[in-house]
């Protein structure tokens, strides 16, 4: 659990406004992620969850506000540079490179790295974590099942050895059993030292593994607190946990 450490949070978003063309998608969103935590951002479809992640990873630039990561302002930094800062995103819908092999996908995950031995080691680590990827390493990624593609997307993101892993809807389109497996892996990854910011529509699952949570509604944070508190709150139960 997140103790009230006096340390600066790993990620601190402060009052960001983000626009999609004319659409005001985020209105003064602030949130923090401390090192070692799993923090989840829940909310309905279109609330701005993905937009928040995309702003952190540099795919979108905020009009106002700041995004600080390990003490450095990364708001508006290009996405390909944000990776080098230690943030890796598993995008919504997995977005694997379908016409390339599993191996090539993993290699692309390590694109910014030059330490061959380290990459080799991490590849082994990914294959240990996702044995099914090893079986299919020379297969085109597009031929994998949905669950395997999610695993590949996560493995690929881990290949850059991120300090902070951003996960966008990892449960999307997966069978309940598989969702459970994926969430266990997320916990494993976290235990191994990677901080996680998780965006989910499946609030139940997300709250069950997170330390803290934020609720996003039409571009604003409306609730925040420990995952346990939120899971117990009437408001969240009614709106997101089906009673």
């Amino acid at each position, binding site marked *: 659990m997140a103790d009230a450490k006096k340390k600066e949070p790993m990620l601190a978003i402060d009052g960001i406004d983000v626009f999609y063309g004319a659409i005001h998608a985020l209105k003064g969103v602030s949130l923090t992620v401390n090192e070692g935590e799993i923090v989840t951002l829940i909310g309905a479809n279109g609330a701005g969850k993905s937009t928040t992640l995309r702003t952190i990873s540099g795919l979108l630039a905020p009009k106002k506000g700041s995004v600080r990561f390990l003490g450095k302002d990364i708001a508006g930094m290009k996405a*390909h540079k944000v990776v080098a800062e230690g943030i890796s995103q598993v995008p919504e819908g997995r977005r694997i490179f379908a016409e390339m092999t599993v191996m090539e996908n993993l290699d692309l995950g390590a694109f910014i790295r030059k330490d061959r031995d380290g990459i080799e080691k991490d590849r082994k680590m990914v294959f240990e974590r996702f044995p099914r990827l090893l079986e299919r390493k020379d297969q085109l990624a597009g031929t994998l099942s949905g669950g395997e593609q999610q695993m590949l997307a996560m493995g690929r993101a881990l290949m850059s050895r991120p300090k902070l892993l951003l996960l966008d809807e990892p449960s999307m389109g997966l069978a309940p059993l598989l969702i459970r497996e994926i969430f266990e892996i997320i916990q494993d990854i976290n235990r191994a030292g990677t901080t996680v910011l998780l965006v989910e529509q499946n609030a139940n699952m997300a709250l069950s593994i997170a330390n803290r949570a934020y609720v996003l509604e039409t571009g604003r944070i409306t609730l925040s607190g420990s995952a346990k508190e939120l899971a117990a709150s009437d408001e969240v139960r009614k709106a997101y946990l089906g009673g």
Partner: protein
Amino acid sequence: MELLQQVVQQLINGISLGSIYALIALGYTMIYGIIKLINFAHGDIYMVGAYIGFFAITQGGFSVVPALLISLVTTGLLGMLVERIAYRPLRKAPRISVLITAIGVSFFIEYTSMYFVSPTPRTFPQMFGDVAVSIGGIVINGQQMLILGITAVLMVLLTYIVQKTKTGKAMRAASFDTETAELMGINSDRIISITFGIGSALAAVAGVLVGIYYNSIDPLMGIMPGLKAFVAAVLGGIGILPGAVVGGLILGVVEALVSGFVSSTFRDAAAFAILILVLLVRPAGLFGKNTKEKV
């Protein structure tokens, strides 16, 4: 026997011509693959390549291979410059704006070249004209051997770059999904720039080879081959590298057969008839999957 001989002869002519189309079509298709732009200025880049080769040979006194290299490098840089100045500022603009810009760039290159090198055609020095191999009445001349040899080398090299190198993997990733490529730490602007460089370099080689083959170059020489290479790219499936090569070869062979057995008047018509046919029957091209547009 006579007929068979003629057919084989025309096939050889067609494959030589088709190799040239393939070299140009590769650039078209690579650039389309990565930024979804039909780069209408590509044929003019090819023309500039021919002129640089021409001046390297006639003014610089270089032989063919160094002249090819000079042209390849200079034209590659020119392609990168065009992308940087004309297309990069429009990265987030609607595709039609970029397309119109490409047409503008095309005219700009054509008429700027006319100003500097004059509209009068130049005669390329005769090269390899006296070398020829004859097998059973079928003649392969030195220029054709040069074209086939150089094209083959470049294609092997390109395949190696695209399939095996880190930059090649980044190119494939960025052309499949630019945004996700960025998330991998790939600087897509840099990859796009490299793609323009390689595509333009291939067109430059085609330009020099055509100069040697047909002996004559002029500032508007890029228009027709540019259009035909576009047809070749569409025929093979735009965005697909092997498609561009096969498309180029088919187009070259069809043109050679039509001019050999029907009439050279219908040569160009044949190329565009192919385009119409492809668009009617198989719009995604020979190698293309009939998938929906990427969102």
